[in-house]
């Protein structure tokens, strides 16, 4: 059936739904739901890694294959350095820029190399905001507790404490650089309530939070004259005889030449893995989110943590076709947007945690209460017109200009018609804060380290051991990693 005909049920049931309040799931129901429907619990999507530092650990098949993949660099590769620096930052997203700026401020000579243009990253796309406990009724401790709950008590306590406690000073730093966070009438930072948190805590720049932060950080990287390499993808790290990282080898995507950079400290800030399309999920991630840094670090002997959990954002667009996987911001649900199945019913408290919301959307679709588009995709409705009905005409236009414009390009007015969504994947929560705090810390640490040590020798000695292990375990799978860019050409 035509999408417009299917939408009628959402319009028809809106008033009845507005009177309804849905309770959150009890802890037991919630566990059951997640175990049955959350993609992290799909056994067949996982396999153990055969060798290397995480040998025996399970992760998604797509990632396992890349981690076990071979390097494109031969043992006898010419490692004469084209550039020498104190701190080399790989990746030009939020974490990379924050690390580079802080290392620079501490007096280190910094080089930032990135795969595409500076700022082409997931960071620019963050819309929902950044969690920082600045409101009087809130506190870092409450932020800690909320995050633990969202993470099912699995988070590392020390890291988490650092993150929530340093949040406010990060906000101050960003403000001093000119980031325009939304304000209340009294000049204080405006906070919104995000899914799964007990207090309003999201700092926003309308629905352009990541874009605004990145515009400023990018500008600052340029202002500080930090040396830049754009369109250069890291394809291997170098190590000295003790296995310490001493630099990186890049491939210039324009002319396919190799570029060797010697550095005393190397920071990998290459972001997520959405473009691996794990379990066939669409993604909201930028084109270069292929987990390259993970492969590089793995071959050099780093043990990776938490490679069995990924975040599935509850609301990726399913229609129109061009926007598949594009995120529909959480903000819509925060402000009261309902999730509605094909029968016109709500089926979950929209402000429950992401894993619960995602799982219940998957449940609706698998049990036949999803809405099917003409191209055969399935999703549920997000009742966007409800926001204007609830808070007055123009609400969407005012609070979600980016989203209005995005759908408007395809002739869809989200203030009049609901949008169709399905979970899509990406990594991490609290992420904007996470990357600023730990970006800053790695930048500072790297600068201090670099000041205190000589440049190590450049070798690719670590590959010998890695290749020997690969051979022992039934040799390599023929895959060369990192992936650099995903291939979308049609397979004939």
């Amino acid at each position, binding site marked *: 059936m035509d999408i417009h005909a299917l939408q009628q049920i959402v319009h028809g049931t809106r008033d009845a739904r507005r009177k309804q309040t849905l309770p959150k799931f009890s802890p037991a129901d919630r566990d059951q739901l997640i175990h049955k429907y959350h993609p992290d619990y799909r056994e067949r999507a996982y396999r153990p890694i055969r060798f290397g530092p995480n040998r025996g650990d399970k992760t998604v098949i797509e990632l396992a294959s890349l981690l076990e993949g071979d390097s494109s660099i031969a043992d006898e590769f010419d490692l004469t350095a084209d550039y020498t620096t104190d701190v080399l930052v790989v990746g030009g997203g939020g974490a990379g820029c924050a690390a580079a700026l802080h290392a620079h401020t501490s007096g280190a000579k910094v080089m930032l190399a990135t795969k595409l243009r500076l700022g082409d990253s997931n960071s620019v796309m963050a819309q929902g905001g950044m969690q920082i406990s600045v409101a009087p009724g809130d506190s*870092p401790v409450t932020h800690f507790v909320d995050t633990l*709950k969202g993470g099912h008590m699995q988070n590392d306590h020390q890291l988490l404490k650092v993150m929530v406690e340093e949040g406010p000073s990060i906000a101050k730093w960003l*403000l001093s650089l000119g980031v325009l966070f939304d304000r209340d009438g009294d000049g*204080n930072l405006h906070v919104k309530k995000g899914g799964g948190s*007990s207090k309003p805590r999201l700092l926003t720049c309308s629905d352009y939070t990541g874009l605004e932060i990145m515009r400023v950080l990018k*500008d600052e990287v340029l*202002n500080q004259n930090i040396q830049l390499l754009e369109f250069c993808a890291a394809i291997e790290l170098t190590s000295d005889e003790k296995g310490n990282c001493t630099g990186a080898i890049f491939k210039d995507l324009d002319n396919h030449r190799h570029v060797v950079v010697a550095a005393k400290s190397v920071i990998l800030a290459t972001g997520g893995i959405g473009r691996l399309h794990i379990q066939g999920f669409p993604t909201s991630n930028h084109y270069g989110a292929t987990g390259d840094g993970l492969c590089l670090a793995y071959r050099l002997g780093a043990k990776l943590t938490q490679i069995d959990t990924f975040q599935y954002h509850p609301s990726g667009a399913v229609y129109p076709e061009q926007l598949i996987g594009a995120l529909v911001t959480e903000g819509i649900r925060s402000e009261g947007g309902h999730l509605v199945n094909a029968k016109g019913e709500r089926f979950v408290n929209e402000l429950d945690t992401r894993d619960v919301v995602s799982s219940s959307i998957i449940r609706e679709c698998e049990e036949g209460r999803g809405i099917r588009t003409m191209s055969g995709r399935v999703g549920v409705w997000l009742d966007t017109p409800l926001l204007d009905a609830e808070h007055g005409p123009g609400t969407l236009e005012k609070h979600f200009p980016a989203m209005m414009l995005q759908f408007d390009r395809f002739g869809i007015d989200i203030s009049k018609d609901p949008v169709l969504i399905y979970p899509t994947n990406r990594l991490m929560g609290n992420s904007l804060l996470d990357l600023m705090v730990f970006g800053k810390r790695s930048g500072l640490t790297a600068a201090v380290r670099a000041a205190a040590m000589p440049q190590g020798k450049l070798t690719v000695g670590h590959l010998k051991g890695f290749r020997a292990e690969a051979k022992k375990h039934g040799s390599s799978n023929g895959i060369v990693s990192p992936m650099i860019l995903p291939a979308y050409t049609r397979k004939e």
Partner: protein
Amino acid sequence: MAVQDGMSITMMPPFPARKATYDMQTLKDPKQDLFNLYPEAPLCRNCNACTEACPQKIDVREGVWKAVFGDFKSVSEMFMDCVMCGMCTPVCIADIAPNLVALYVSRAQGAHFTEKPLGLDARIKEIQDGRFDDEWATILKMTEKELADHCATVK
């Protein structure tokens, strides 16, 4: 236009416009400094090509004028949608890079002409003064079970 079969897509490098460099935090008079950093900004000839080029439907021309007249607040609001694609730059007959002018103006608005949020400073001081230390001590001492129970009480 949407993506169609057989189309090839290239990532455009940024248009090589001259970007002024400045140290945002130490600027003394940002409204006056605009004319040193981007002396071409007041030379806008009103051709409107920038506005027509903008995929984000920003009234770029209007923004350039407002910047020159010192209405930094309006500029910062108008250019919140700017994705820095740079499409407004090569079309400008006055050699202005409107998006860079707007970025400078928006940052100056944020760093120099916006109220300091007092609540934020208060929170930073609370953390430095150890106001939450007792709470932390209690929480970090808890067993997993106690912590889970405690978390369940926070709604």
